[in-house]
């Protein structure tokens, strides 16, 4: 499994690096519209006359950037909410956080994403990340809170507390212990966010997601109804998306296996 994952990673990296290095047509050339794979354009051209390889590589990066930005927002809010729940569980802020979490929990995430996108109407990456992150943070908070609670009961933490350390220092000391949990959760959340973006763009519900894999697939679907366009554009887009998803799921699984205490002789 790890060898095939490594091979997939190398192929994906080579595809992206070479794709980003390729020149896209700077001037409009009608002959390049939907051109078939050739020596100059190994993966053919898009309906706009651009090199498919370059466009696909750019789309993978853009999708990854949007998903990472959403994840960062969700991590920031989730960790803050988790800290509030762990360190001041009986305060009014904790009750409000818990209530907010439950309110977001009773809305299915995909429905929530459409709702947030319809309300916020994002025009750029940050607005988009905010829209999706609004419904992604409760899962991070749910993971963070019990972990922080466990750490706050440890002897070294109690010693810190007894010496009068400020809450900020306490959080600073706790965060490094959360890295394995958060890394595993992030690796699993990233493909979910990529799929969400692609689905929303495909269905035409996403705004602010131009040049992503989802919007590319949405553009490429017309090729199915018009065989003269060729299937290469759709195939390349779908192939890049699947390769990326498989790589991320593979990484997530490999990481989970590696951090499994049973593999290290623990209990």
């Amino acid at each position, binding site marked *: 499994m790890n060898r095939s994952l490594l091979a997939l990673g190398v192929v994906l990296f080579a595809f992206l690096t070479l794709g980003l290095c390729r020149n896209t047509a700077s001037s409009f050339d009608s002959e390049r519209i939907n051109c078939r794979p050739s020596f100059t354009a190994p993966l053919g051209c898009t309906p706009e006359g651009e090199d498919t390889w370059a466009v696909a590589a750019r789309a993978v990066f853009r999708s990854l950037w949007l998903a990472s930005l959403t994840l960062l927002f969700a991590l920031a809010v989730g960790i803050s909410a988790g800290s509030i729940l762990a360190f001041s569980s009986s305060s009014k802020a904790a009750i409000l956080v818990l209530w907010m979490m439950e309110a977001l929990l*009773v*809305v*299915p995430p*995909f*429905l929530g994403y459409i709702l947030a996108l319809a309300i916020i109407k994002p025009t750029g990456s940050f607005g988009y990340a905010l829209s999706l992150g609004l419904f992604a943070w409760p899962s991070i908070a749910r993971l963070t809170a019990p972990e922080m609670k466990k750490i706050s009961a440890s002897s070294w933490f109690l010693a810190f507390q007894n010496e009068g350390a400020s809450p900020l220092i306490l959080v600073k000391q706790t965060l490094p212990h959360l890295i394995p949990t958060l890394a595993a959760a992030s690796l699993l959340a990233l493909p979910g966010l990529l799929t969400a973006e692609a689905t929303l763009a495909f*269905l035409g519900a996403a705004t602010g997601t131009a040049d992503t894999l989802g919007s590319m697939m949405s553009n490429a679907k017309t090729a199915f109804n018009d065989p003269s366009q060729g299937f290469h554009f759709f195939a390349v887009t779908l192939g890049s998306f*699947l390769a990326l998803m498989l790589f991320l*799921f593979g990484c997530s699984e490999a990481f989970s296996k590696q951090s499994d205490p049973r593999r290290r002789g623990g209990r």
Partner: protein
Amino acid sequence: MPFIRFASAILLALFLTHVGFLTSGLWNPHERGSGHKASQVEVPSFLTWVLKAAVLDFGKTSSNELPVTKAFSSRLGSTLTLMLLALLFALFVALPLAALASAREAAGKRFPMSRMGPLLLLSIPTFIIAFFVVELGKGEAMEKYKVVWAAMVVATAMIPTWFFHAKAKFDQIFAMEFIEFQKISGTSTSTIFFKNVLPNALLPLFTISAYIPVALVEGSLIVERICNLDGLGFWVFQAFVEREYSVVMFAVFISGILLSIGIAVSEFASKRLFAELEEKNT
């Protein structure tokens, strides 16, 4: 008091939706085309909406002036059929596959598709499968059995998750000492499976029941839109895109109730399981 907890969470979700509509200026009657019927409908205050909802008056749809509940009930049949079929497909594929994979691995044999197959299925988004089904299955058969095809697509999204959960439980039970003892005493694998493994694995599987309504609601939203099925998913999706206040509020309300039931069942199963484990230990 789970009822109060869920009711307050649903109320907050509805309030946030309402505030979102008002503050973003999204549901601004003057923003849309003057000829649009929706521009005639006004957004009520949240309290008015709640009071009306308490007597099951959820307002009217702006597209055809039908009461929301009537429009909902007219589409409920096709979506329920879709959801039930999808649930059955997912159950009948994921559970036997997980049991087979686990039993083979417990017997020291390899089951090659136990990891790559579900992982591959997990990587392919539902909309792509739905799109392929619609594009490649054009014809009379597709039109006739549209709901069945759509249900299969919704099921593909649920199968990998159920497979992984079920296999993990089956693996855990197959590794237990009393199963080993049964094997040594010469009991057949099928007897061990149906008498010991399956009953012990089914209850823990109820703990993922909170996931079922989510998967079904999301699945119907995506699949009905792509397969052009006039069900609840299609209707709700259109309402979100066209910013129809009454339908959106109703959709949040109904999905909240569905999810709350799922979570309550899941919590009940977890508690029951915990109590049973405690009983066994003592």
